[in-house]
């Protein structure tokens, strides 16, 4: 099931440019820059960790490494959905922190040149916009490009972790 993309390397810098791994989540297409992606694995048993925000599902064993798993649906406060055989964990490495992202379905590696990326719309209504790096246009589809740094480390996330830790 494991599919090693093995694209993570400095010499591949150019070939990785403008490439995004796209995935489905609640009917929308999302993309993350391919250079952060380490591998994609099928859903496996996740060990829950107490006192975590709801979107941190727990930890998994990735070949001897223990990595936390974040449910992206829960992160965006979308309705929960049972995991099935299409559910995947995308393992990303951001600033030496490895985290697994649970997504509904991984679709493809898409080439979205810079010219095709619109800046993120700033609607005050939806605060989750801060995770959006831009909107990628591909044919007639729109792909929401995620800013993985903010997804993992945004102040919002820190606050959530903190609050959960303190209150409970």
């Amino acid at each position, binding site marked *: 099931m494991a599919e090693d993309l093995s694209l993570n390397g400095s010499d591949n810098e150019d070939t990785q440019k403008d490439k995004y791994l796209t995935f489905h989540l609640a009917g929308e297409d999302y993309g993350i820059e391919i250079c952060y992606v380490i591998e994609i694995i099928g859903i496996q*048993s996740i060990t829950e960790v107490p006192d975590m925000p709801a979107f941190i599902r727990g*930890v998994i*064993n990735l*070949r*001897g490494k223990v990595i936390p798993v974040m449910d992206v649906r829960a992160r965006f406060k979308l309705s929960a959905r049972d995991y099935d055989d299409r559910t995947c964990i995308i393992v990303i490495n951001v600033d030496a922190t490895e985290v697994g992202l649970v997504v509904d379905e991984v679709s493809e590696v898409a080439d979205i040149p810079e010219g095709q990326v619109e800046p993120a719309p700033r609607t005050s209504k939806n605060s989750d916009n801060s995770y959006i790096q831009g909107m990628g246009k591909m044919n007639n589809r729109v792909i929401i490009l995620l800013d993985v740094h903010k997804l993992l480390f945004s102040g919002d996330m820190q606050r959530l972790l903190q609050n959960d830790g303190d*209150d409970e």
Partner: protein
Amino acid sequence: MSMQLDDDQIEIIQEFVTESRDMIEQLEPAIIELGQNSDPETMNAIFRLFHSMKGSAGFLEFTHLTRVAHAAESLLDLIRNNEIELLPEHVTLFCAACDFSKDALDAVDASFSDDEMNVAADTISAQLHQAIDGPATSIEDPEDSIANIPAAAVPSEPAPVFPELEITEEMRTSFVQESGELLQNAEQGLLNWGEHPEDSDSIGDIFRHIHSFKGNCGFFGFGHLEKLSHQMENVLDRVKSGSKLAVDNPTEQLLASLDLLQQGLNNIADGKEDFIEDLDSHLDDLKNLMSPLLGDLLAEEGVDKLAISSAVEIQKKPVGEILMQQGSATAEQIAKALKRQQESSEEAKSKAKPVSRSKVPAKRQDIRVELGKLDNLINLIGEMVIAENMLIHNPDLKGLELENFGKAAQHMSKLVRELQEMAMSIRMVPVSGLFRRMIRLVHDISVKAGKKVDLQLIGEETEIDKTVIETITDPLVHLLRNSLDHGLETPAERSANGKSDKGTIKLSARHEEGEVWVTIEDDGRGLNRDKILEKAINKGLIDGDGSDLTEKQINNLIFAPGFSTAAQVTDISGRGVGMDVVKRNLEKIKGKIDITSKLGQGTRINLRIPLTLAIIDGMMVRTGTTTCIVPTLSILEAYRPEMEQITVTPDGDELARVREHFFPVVRLHQILNKKPDSEQLCDGILIVLEYQDSRFCLFIDEILGQQQTVIKGLSDFIGTVPGVSGCTILGDGGVSLILDVGTLVESFDSKKELADAALISKGGK
């Protein structure tokens, strides 16, 4: 050796090289020992080495090697027969001969000839012959050693004993490491000696360390360091030979110089030059320590004593020049003195060079390995343990009769376990190095703060993971500073309170409860509860008057950033940063801090540090569908409770009776938010756990078994989780949490409160 070599000869040569190298390795420490006590057995061993090397080298026609070995042998023979008295410079010569032999062997190994060692062999054997012919002027001879002094002011070029070597980055790194150790040892010795000036052994030690350091620097061509260390060596030499110095106790001055050397060394480590600021003024300071003796030398040459003392005042210029200007000394007298100075500086050079390569005598042999490689190795072994578990407990094997497989598996388990233990021990280093660094710190601060203190080090041999040691260095510094500056009273205050005027600080390390405990204990004034509360209220750290806070909570207030009860910020402490650093660094390694303090009696701060990557014996337990590991160390017993053993208090707290005692019950499923098989206590199992002095019962559904587990940290992304100390990977590849007995109760209490609150609000509706 122009003839062609056949394979046989090459083999013989190689064997010779290996054998000789081994012998030299063994004998180097012995030679250095020889300087301290000329044990006839050691002497014979060294003699045998040179003799057999001479024989083999002669047979293989390595003429230069033969020459040197022969000369060394002759000198040794004379010493052995008491015809020549063994002098320190002889020891140095033998070391030089050893070093030469090593270089020659390297050359032989590379080119099967020692021709290129021609020059070096000449130098060494000339020196040896000189030592044989006329007993060399003794180093204890006061006149000669005095003549040494000005030599330091003249930059001495490295003597050409060794062929030009290219200094690689690797050599540089190992130089920095080695020299750092030498400096540390020297510092250690100095502090010792400062306390017991009558101890002449320690001064010899310091001298040797500084000497080797100087040698190292000279070898690498670090002029500044060499000059400064040379001057220190001179001062030490004076002390060693029992002469008086300008000041009674030069410790402070020497310590300051050591700091400069360290600073220069740091510069080198950073890839810069060995630049030392104000080198000349420091050199002069050191020289001033000995200036009266310099005068004596010239007085012997017939120079007017008055003139000398005035010359001493004008130390900046060469003494000879000044004296000539004043007409107090003739050019002839100066020239004579200078010549003697020259001679002895040569001697000093030849003495300094060879020892540079011989290490401080060490019984065990070390090899320096890059830490990254070690980490990789340990990670790999950790993964191998897991892989082994997955293999042996593979579900495919279930129910099969596999006698031979079982045997093989058992054998492998044993090997893997040994390998793991070995790997873990590699990373562990004794805390003695860390502790000893603190001696200096305590010495400095106590002088500065005008307090008397006796630092006791206990459990120096306790081994802790290297990275942990690095992390707790800063906290330890801060804690010690606090103890000294705030904790301990001034001698006057102490006497007034009926304590001895010398305070005691105990620094101890030991293994306890699967952790390492580093404790700092002082017998000072203790934490002042009222003062802390007052400050905390002022700073708005707590609500109310703090009367509802426990002792522990109050003590913990001192870890808040910016918190300081010191009335005055001194240059040692008081800004309130230190304790915050302590807390942060300890959190980094998932350590904990306990403070206990009695007003007027002292404070005890206990740092509890987990052994990283330790394997622990764990009991696997289950509640509902979740399995967890409980450290076996904390388990006292486990039993299935009867209904009548359980008491429920009006507050809803459950108590379980174990013989005469009642222990609170902690429900694991509530901590993990899981559904257990049954909520009834008598359907499950209670495990009695002990944490420090408190005991409680953990309610679980079932005990699954016991196994050794490799502790893995939960990801940094998750941070610290109350009640959980880490996790481990099970045989089936799943992850299981390891419960932290210490924080389990706290976690349970907060959970229960939350649940109770929810219940109440539900009931209200």
